């Protein structure tokens, strides 16, 4: 068996030729900080995936699959490199530290992930819904949120 590749102590896997790092939830921000120092000056994208109905997926040894996954895409302008960070977030406690202090641009992206998946980002300055109305119930991109299910959308409005 080959030795597992790692970066700053987190296991690395390759997905279709793209490099992916899998830090633990507690080491997430510390790893991002190191990556920022390594030259990944831009956080292009931050999103989440709900693996409720697809639990068995490929993860490197030592990474336990959880329901949610936060996916961060970084770019290093100096070395023209992309890197993806995938963190497992459990259903029982869907919280993770915010990357806002490293890249303020993640503010809106984390709000979107919160809005769509209900994942809370600790240390985020203004964690409110961004795309859905503020009195919306539920988080639409979760897999147990059915398509076409229309609750009473704007409560309190005189119909």
């Amino acid at each position, binding site marked *: 068996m080959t030795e597992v590749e790692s970066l700053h102590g987190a296991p690395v896997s390759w*997905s279709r030729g793209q490099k992916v790092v899998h830090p633990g939830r507690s080491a997430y921000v510390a790893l991002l900080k190191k990556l920022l120092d390594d030259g990944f000056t831009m956080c292009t994208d931050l999103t989440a995936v709900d693996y409720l109905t697809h639990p068995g997926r490929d993860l490197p040894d030592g990474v336990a699959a959880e329901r949610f996954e936060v996916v961060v895409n970084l770019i290093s*302008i100096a070395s*023209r490199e992309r890197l993806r960070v995938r963190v497992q977030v459990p259903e029982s406690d869907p919280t993770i530290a915010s990357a806002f202090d490293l890249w*303020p641009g993640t*503010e809106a992206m984390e709000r979107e992930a919160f809005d769509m998946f209900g994942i809370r980002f600790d240390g985020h300055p203004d964690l409110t819904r*961004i795309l859905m109305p503020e009195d919306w119930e539920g988080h639409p991109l979760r897999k147990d949120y059915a398509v076409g299910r229309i609750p009473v959308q704007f409560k*309190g409005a005189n119909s």
Partner: protein
Amino acid sequence: MTAVENIRQTSEGGQEMKPRSEIGARELMREVGAVLRMSEAEAAKLGQLPVDSDEDQTMIINMGPQHPSTHGVLRLMLELQGETVLRCKPIIGYLHTGMEKTGEDLTYLQGGTNVTRMDYLSPLNNELVFSMAVEKLLGIEDDIPERAVWMRMLLSELNRMSSHLLFLATNGMDIGAVSMMLYGWREREEVLRFFQKVTGLRMNHNFIRPGGLAADLPPGWRDDVLEILDMLPPRLEEYDILMTNQPIWRERLQGVGVITASEAMALGTSGPILRSTGVPWDLRRDMPYLKYDQMEFDVIVGSYGDAFDRYAIRLNEVRESMKIVRQILDRMPAGDYRIQNKKVTPPPRGRIDESMEALIHHFKIFTEGFKVPEGEAYVGIESPRGEIGCYIVSDGGPKPYRIHMRAPSFVNIQALPHMMRGGLVADAVAVISSVDPVLGDVDR
């Protein structure tokens, strides 16, 4: 129960900008720092503002969501002191239609019709990035026929031109050069007419599909493209006379909405906004896809990071795109316009009449779709507005398990509060316009 009570009941809280009396100094500091990346000293100074006495002189007003200069349904909350903008908060979501959720219910063949409607001013780039992500998951990205790759590049560059021409039109309109509105739309229409001839539609083409394209170029396409290339340069020179070299135009844009390179990078902006600060970052050159590594073109950068730089970059990118299109015309190879892989390619029309198997194959591919191996992939390309990315997770079925589009406008628009801070309310329109947001892309 009233609406207000109802809102208070949810734990998320309101999305609006709060008056200063309702937020503490620390929150205010974070809120402004959220987009500012200011120094500790500066932030501390801000935190010590005499909040109460200030409040009398400032007011919070709404700009939008229905406002001609907001390019759709963008709503900005501005805190004004006289005519100066102290704070700004973009409030979005008015055009949210859950397209990522819809995408989970469409097969990979149908997916193109969905993503093409996101950034409706550069539909071909949306389709391209979606197709490239699917091809990456299928592992066929290196098997796409030459002609298909060059056709994709041709359409993508023409789309960049049409999108930037529309920007020039609306930018002119927003600043007050109303005649520019007509000229820009007129030129864009010429490009769209070519798209209509090729794809059948002016917008939302669903023409670039996983595996190649929907059809070959029609006869006479070369003359049509040459006509556009001959028509544009004198028109662009007219724009220069009308706008670039005109003192009023320069007065109106220079030094407005300034952003620095480190701020632009920290905010994650891309495209003309990042390049206006002097960072020569263009995915076509720095992370080449298609055949851009064989193309001769310049990456246009600015030096001041203001609205004028962003205008000038887009104007000159039209010229660069024309350069690329000319090179494509010289080198367009013959061949197939889509991959001949039974898995993703429907059989040719003629075969369906002769062969039962072909009929079944055709039926299966369009009803059930093709299965994509398990895995996840992210592909990012340079759209007219910056990096458009597509992240797809597949569970091995014929529909994406999760599809996420990294929308350039969504990220770029978050730079607005920073660009507007300390500026005049009259310049707010110029700043929005210079970011060139497409609200369909912001809200998806």
